[in-house]
Every structure is written in structure tokens, then in C-alpha cells.
């Protein structure tokens, strides 16, 4: 199954290489990887999605902790969490097609961020499923270019993320009692 890891690393040269090299040499395939700053200066956060089983996930976590610049690894796969992908999709739509596309963009709560005589650029944020679905419905109109960030993810609520690997023999890694919080992404705030 797909496992989502949030990995906190020192923001130093070559750290991405160390993490990526670890996945490669231990024969894990990265489905997606994003890196960015965190709320703490000098610490970067990677969201890495890997297809592996529970044993693989625990081993990967243990290997990551052996990297000197790695500070914390959270497997948030089974925790209530928000996962988002951002996509920019360029569609070659003119005339009536353009109107249809704009209606679809509305339905998907996406945005048009660039308009040219020959094309539109649509920005959308959501789960991979939602974006996949939008891409599929746009495809007949001519998707000429697309870029996606890959998944970024965060646990819901304030419950501290437990360091996983508590039971090396396996078992789900979610928190026992997540704080109450809910999906408000569709609320018009």
C-alpha cells in the first residue's frame, strides 16, 4: 500500500541526495517527493509517498533515523490527515470549448490563473484523486501541458505525532486518540 512519510531534516546541502539515495539503495520506489521549509528555521520537511508493506515502512523509518541530518520521521499513512497535490493544467480551449472548460473548473472549485487566445491555465489543489478526475474531464479539450507538485500532507488536529516503529513487528501506526477535527475544505470561509 502507499505509505506517506513526513520527514524532518536539517536544511543542509546534500540532504535530499542522502534521503533519495537511501530509498534507491534499499530498493524502495518513491511515488512522490516534495521538500520545503517548515515553521522551524533550518529544518526542512519532506513528504514522501512510497509503495511498500507495513514491514517495509518500519524498516524504511529505521533506516531514515540512521541518517545524521534526519530529525524525525512520521508515518502519517493511517492517521487522520490532510493530503494535497497542486496542479497547473494548460488546456488548448477556444470558442465554445472554453466555456465548457470554465464550467468544469467551477464544478471542481479550481481556478483559471492565465488566459491567452489559444489556451487557459487552470490551478487546482486537492487530493490526487480529485486532480486525476479533473484532468480526465479536461483531456477531451486538449491538455497540452501539466505540472503537479506531488503530495504534501499534514496530520489533523493538535495531537503530537507519535514517533512510529513502536511495534517493529508491525501494526497500524496511527494515534490512539486523535483530536477532534474535521474537513472544512469545502466550507466557504
Amino acid at each position: 500500500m502507499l505509505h506517506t512519510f513526513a520527514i524532518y531534516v536539517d536544511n543542509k546541502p546534500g540532504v535530499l541526495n542522502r534521503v533519495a539515495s537511501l530509498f534507491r539503495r534499499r530498493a524502495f520506489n518513491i511515488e512522490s517527493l516534495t521538500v520545503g521549509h517548515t515553521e522551524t528555521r533550518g529544518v526542512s520537511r519532506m513528504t514522501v509517498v512510497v509503495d511498500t508493506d507495513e514491514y517495509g515502512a518500519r524498516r524504511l523509518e529505521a533506516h531514515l533515523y540512521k541518517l545524521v541530518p534526519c530529525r524525525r520521521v512520521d508515518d502519517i499513512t493511517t492517521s487522520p490527515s490532510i493530503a494535497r497535490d497542486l496542479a497547473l493544467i494548460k488546456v488548448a480551449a477556444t470558442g465554445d470549448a472554453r466555456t465548457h472548460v470554465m464550467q468544469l473548473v467551477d464544478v471542481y472549485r479550481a481556478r483559471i490563473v492565465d488566459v491567452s487566445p489559444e489556451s487557459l491555465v487552470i490551478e487546482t489543489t486537492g487530493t490526487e484523486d480529485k486532480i486525476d478526475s479533473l484532468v480526465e474531464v479536461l483531456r477531451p479539450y486538449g491538455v497540452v501541458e501539466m505540472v503537479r507538485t506531488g503530495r504534501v500532507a499534514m496530520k489533523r488536529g493538535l495531537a503530537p505525532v507519535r514517533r512510529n516503529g513502536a511495534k517493529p513487528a508491525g501494526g497500524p501506526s496511527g494515534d490512539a486518540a486523535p483530536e477532534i477535527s474535521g474537513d472544512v475544505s469545502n466550507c466557504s470561509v
Partner: protein
Amino acid sequence: MKLTGAQILWEALVREGVTDVFGYPGGAILPAYDAMLGYPIRHVLVRHEQGATHMADGYARASGKVGVAIATSGPGATNMVTGIATAMMDSSPIVCITGQVGSKLIGSDAFQETDITGITLPITKHNYLVTTADDVAPAVREAFAVARSGRPGPVLVDITKDAQQASCEVDWQAAEPHLSETFDDALPGDGDVADAIELINAAERPLILAGHGVMLSGAEQQIVQLAERGGIPIAVTLLGIGGVAASHPLNLGMMGMHGEAWVNHAIQEADLLIALGMRFDDRVTGNLKTYARTAKKIHVDIDRAELNKNVRVDVAIAKDLRTAVTEWLPLVGAVDRSAWHARIAELKGDSAVRDIQNLPDDGHLYAAHVINDLWRLTHGDAIVVTDVGQHQMWEAQYYKHDRSRSLITSGGLGTMGFALPAAIGAKIACPDAEVWVVCGDGGFQMTCPELATAVQENLDLNIAIINNGYLGMVRQWQEFFYEKRYAATPISGPNFAKLAEAFGVAATTVTRRSEVAGAVEAARHHSRAALIDFQVEQEDSVYPMVPAGADLHKMIRRPSPSPIVETAAD
């Protein structure tokens, strides 16, 4: 007071307790070499940088201290790669210092520039590229902390030439290592003491599997106490040899591909395996599907990533071995396991005679003769450093190591050419110990220029070449699995005695068993380096053997009638 980066390097090494380094100078490391003369450090000039890393490795394994190797950029650094990988696989703490081209030249394909931190990324615990003098002290100090901590291993520090030349003030307090708290730290909620004790006290046929970790954590006494308290027999891995005295009645001997047959059978019949500081390597388990199917398993290793890696276990404990076993000791019950001991004695009675026993002189010189005689003549007290191949397995079978850290060998990586340089490192770490190199004629030819190093350093080192004119272990595989098609395994060599003499090493050639004792005694009493070329039976094989990937209990046994007449009599 301002110091140059080069001075800071040596000052940091001295502060880490370093007294000996193994190295080879060159352009990008010249400032460091120039500064070295001002510090109380013995520098051993090697003949190849690979030798420097193996020496640092042998030094570390013999003494438990961190070994240090130093080389220049480019080829100097890349020559270290094999030695670094060897140390990584066998958890040996070494720090490698390399020079690098000036920081302004990095990335320009300058003369002798190579991306050594990139190259060694997967074969070091960690590495550092240092481009300013300010960063030298923190990097070196952290390198030692990383090399020593948790599961030990190699660390490389690559220092640019300008960082060595520039000067700065050093704040040694501020240069303290600041490792993240999670690094090499056991995670909470590990399988606990109670789980392990419940399994141990309930087991009828338990077996301790003792690995290199026993020595790395200094748990030699605790393991024996555990075994004695519970009447639990012990099997050892190749790198675990010496951690438990071979003469201890509960020590059954080596497991695995060329382990004792009764040990492998005992593993397959056990109802509990207590794996301590070992990692279920494929050379130890054979076919994982049929490995110890009747046994519950407890695994203690300081490296969490080893737990549940090859073998799924019932209780996994990521902890320092000595700490873990010490916690168990008061709780281990005295259980009557005489039926299990009787069963093992039965297994032993059958195979001991057939496979591994003392061998009478039938006119031929067998490697087993040589090793067995060497063991008797050195009273089992020597540090033996072996290379890789048949002689390595014969040494493990026929030399009975009673002392911890008395066998030094390349296990995980299987690095030919390891023995001679590693022995030089061991001898420098333990100058009062009797050190023997046991090496094949193939492996010896890989690193024999280090004879010059041994001579230049006036080392009293003894070298036994087990010379069968073949790359013997590969030949054995060809005999067993490739219909005796000996592709590229017959190997010629120089007259090793004359070669040694040319280096200034006393040497002799032995072709008969009756000559073994005299030659060994002569070498032992010679106060400088001495070499013996033992020209042994050419097509002998190591038995028993579990073919790669086969079931552990399905061993190839010595065929009968055997070329070696085996008897049970001593």
C-alpha cells in the same frame, strides 16, 4: 590563538585520543601533512590507500578504538572505497580524512578532483565536505562521535586544500558534536524484557546465536552468564568467533554456510533462537523459507533497521546488547534442558567425525593441518587476521579462538586483500600481541606491497600463505556447481619466499606436514616480519557446505572415501 585548518585537524585528532594514523600524502592533503610534524602522532606510510583503510579497520577491530586513515583527493580518495565498504559491512569504526581540491575549484574537474562524498555516500555512516577552516573542528569531532555511536561504522571527512590552509580561532566547546537526539537512539515501545524472558524460560530447545555485536557492545561475560544460567547452548557467526570462548562447553561453534553440521541442525531443531548482535545474513540462514521453522525468535540489535529485515521475529529489541542481556540475567530461570543437550551431543557425535576433526599425516599437506598446527603452536593466543576464501573458512573451523577480538576477518563484504594490511593495523594497535596473517595465494597478491609497510615500521608480523595455486573458493564452487569448469581460477604466483626476502622479510616454504611446526616456531621466534609459504593440496574443498540459497540442514558433506582420512582420535 589562531590555528590553520590543518593544525585544527591534528589537534582534533589528538583530542579524540588518536595516536596512530595510516596514510599516503598527495597534493590536496599536503598542508595537513606539513602540520602533522608538530603533533604526537605516529603516521604509518602505506603503499596503497586501500591498505590505509584496512589498517585503520584492523586497528579498530583489534583495539575497539577508532581507526584513522588519511589520503589525498582524487585517486587517493577513490582507492579508499573498498576499505570503507568493508568497514561499513562489518560495523568497524574508522574515520577517513581526505584532501580535496580548493573550494573555488570544486565542480570544475580540477586536477585530482573527485566527488568522494558523493561516491562514499552509501558506504559511510555519514560524511562531510569541509570547505572552511571554521568547520574543521566540528566536522572531525562529530565524525568520531558518529563512528563510535550505536552500530559503529566508517565516516569520511573531505577537507578542501584552502580550508586546511586558512586560519581561524577555535572554540573547542562550541565544536562539541550536536547529534540530533533521534540519531541512533532506541525508539520507545520496543519489545520488552518480559516478552523475551517469557519465551526464554518456556523454551525447551533454546539456542543463542551470538554475532559481532557481542564484542562491539562488550557483552562477552553477559552472554556466557545467560548461557550458563539457562543451560542454553551458543552458536556463533563468523564475526562472532572469539566473543564466546571456543573452549566453553556450551559453545557449539560456527553456524552457516561452512558452519559445523551439528550447529546448523541444532538451529533447525531449536524451539527458540535468541539472536544477539547478529543480522541473519544469507550466509548464515540459507533458504529463509525453511530457516528455523520450529523456532520462536528473539532478536536484539542496536540497529533497529536489522530487526525484521531478513527474518521475522517474535520479540524485536533495539538496544545495546550488554544492557539488554544484563536486564534479562536476574530473570532467567534455571531450566533443565538436558534432553536438548543430549540431542545436540547426538548430532555432534555423527558429524564431528566426518567433517571437522584432527587430521593424521598421510603424506599430503592440507590447509586444515596447517591451521590446526598453528592453533596448537600459538596456544590459541594469537590475533589471527584472515583474508577471504577457503583458508578463511578453514581458519574459522580449525583455529579455536578463546579470546575476544582475536579473529579479524572481512565477513560482510568478503574483501580479498584485507588480511595483510588489517594485520598491520592490528599489530600497531596491539604491539605485544602475536599477530598472524592467514591468507590465500590469490588474496595475498592483491595487497602484498604492504609487506614494505610492515618492514618500514619494524613490525613483528607472521604471515602464513595457504597456497593452493587456485582461487580456491571459487574453484570449489566451480567443482560443485559448474561441472569442474575451472574458468579463470588457476592462478600462478611469484616464489613467495623470494618475494618476501626481496622486501626484507624472513621467509620459508613448507610442503610437508612434518615441516609445519619447525617453520611456525621459527617465525614466532623471529623478531621481525616472517612469512611461510604453505604449499597445500590444490583441490581440497571446505566441508560441510550449504550451497547458496539451499536449506540450512542440507549440507554437502565431505565425500567418502575422503582424500583426507578423518578419525575421531586427537
